[in-house]
């Protein structure tokens, strides 16, 4: 069963090609296509319907201890108005999901899981519930819009008062029914706006109206994927899953082994655990590597690609792959098997694209 987001009619009016994704019907692209949408976000601005993302709130006296137990990052020094990224692990150290955590009040945290993992996350949280906490699924209450790109700040300034707009990356402000956070999944400056479903269409229309003179266009799931890949960001189900640890997925920065016990800690501390690393690959030969292409170093198979496509800003085919952590990938000849044929490739550092300044 697929759910329509509150913006479904807008997508259809704007010529969105609708597809099912994580239980929702969303546009993979609009009329201008993935490349134009991708470039708009890099050079001007793009607006995305991300209402499919889940929202789960954890409240109560023991909420801090509880989020610290179910997530790998450390939330003890977090202040209200801050956002933190964190994997959620199973006991084997595999990733259940990766989420954003918003500290709304001293005893109130909002977790934002991926759409396709929302129920899994909700059930896992309830299964492991301890102490005085309340877990509430607010996914049906909220819609969400992402406004991403260099002109996003200008658009926000015209949309709302300055004091409603967060300044620091990974911070947020909320007033009445709207929560604005300076976060995103594109590698650009941008905002994510949470509001109750009934308000989402109003906000979408207003932002599009304000932004039309500065190059703002609606963007679909296709551009969302190429943008995150270009920015070297992992995607659940590709760079990580229930079997892949956050360390292997390159998310070690969000695993705080020094904190008290948390789910997955023992497994992640085990020296015998297979350790991998996520690497960047540029396809030099002819072809576009997708997911699950074999990667060869000096003719030895060393791993598989986890994501790959043509990246519009970099103007070439790129992929990410998972290989053993101790594998020396530099100065060796690399090939990737694309549709049965080995093509030349090259190791490159992640991210493929990095914007010049980050405020």
């Amino acid at each position, binding site marked *: 069963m697929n759910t329509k987001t509150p913006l479904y009619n807008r997508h259809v009016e704007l010529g969105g090609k609708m597809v099912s994704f994580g239980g929702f019907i969303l546009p993979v692209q609009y009329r201008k296509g*993935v490349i134009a949408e991708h470039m708009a976000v890099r050079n001007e601005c793009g607006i995305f319907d991300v209402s499919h993302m889940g929202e789960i709130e954890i409240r109560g006296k023991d909420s801090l201890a509880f989020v610290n137990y179910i997530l790998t990052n450390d939330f003890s020094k977090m202040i209200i108005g801050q956002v933190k990224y964190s994997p959620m692990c199973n006991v084997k150290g595999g990733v259940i999901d990766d989420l954003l955590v918003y500290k709304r009040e001293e005893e109130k945290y909002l977790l934002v899981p991926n759409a396709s993992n929302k129920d899994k996350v909700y059930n896992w949280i309830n299964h492991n519930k301890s102490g005085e906490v309340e877990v509430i699924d607010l996914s049906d209450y909220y819609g969400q819009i992402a406004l991403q790109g260099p002109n996003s700040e200008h658009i926000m300034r015209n949309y709302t008062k300055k004091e409603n707009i967060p300044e620091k990356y990974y911070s947020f402000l909320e007033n009445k029914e709207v929560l604005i956070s300076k976060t995103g999944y594109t590698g650009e400056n941008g905002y994510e706006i949470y509001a109750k479903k009934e308000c989402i269409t109003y906000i979408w229309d207003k932002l599009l109206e304000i932004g039309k003179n500065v190059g703002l266009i609606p963007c679909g799931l296709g551009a969302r994927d190429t943008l995150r890949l270009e920015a070297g960001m992992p995607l659940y189900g590709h760079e990580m899953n229930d079997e892949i640890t956050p360390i292997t997925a390159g998310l070690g920065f969000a695993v705080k082994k020094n904190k008290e016990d948390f789910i997955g800690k023992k497994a992640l501390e085990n020296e015998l655990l297979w350790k991998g690393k996520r690497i960047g690959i540029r396809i030099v030969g002819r*072809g576009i590597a997708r997911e699950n292409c074999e990667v060869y170093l000096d003719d030895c198979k060393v791993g598989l690609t986890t994501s790959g496509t043509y990246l*519009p800003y970099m103007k070439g085919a790129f992929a990410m792959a998972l290989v053993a952590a101790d594998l020396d990938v530099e100065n060796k000849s690399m090939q990737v098997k694309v549709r049965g044929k080995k093509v030349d490739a090259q190791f490159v550092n992640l991210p493929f694209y990095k914007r010049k300044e980050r405020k």
Partner: protein
Amino acid sequence: MNYPKDLLYSKSHEWIKYEDKIVIIGITDYAQDSLGDIVFINLPEDGDEVEKGEAFSDVESVKAVSDVISPVTGTICEVNEELLDSPEKINENPYDAWLIKAKEVIDHEDFMNAEEYEVFLKKQ
């Protein structure tokens, strides 16, 4: 979307044009639109044999890979090599951006005319 009346169409969304004994083959407006921005194409070589129902090329967009199926059995006599460097020409004008020309055509699929193809698309 646009389906010129002077062309023939296959069920796998190729367009076909007869020019004397030469057959020109490309992909339809529907096919390019479904694929989205085309960023890569693999083409066969001059002199290669093509067989009806078999893939002779693949086109890739940002999102997907799609085989191009030969609607005829014959021998390739010309390849549009310009597309190797600018595959986006297929999106811009799918009926200008032919993929291959074939000669000595001894067999072909059942073709549709433009009107029939549009009816066929509606049923998709």
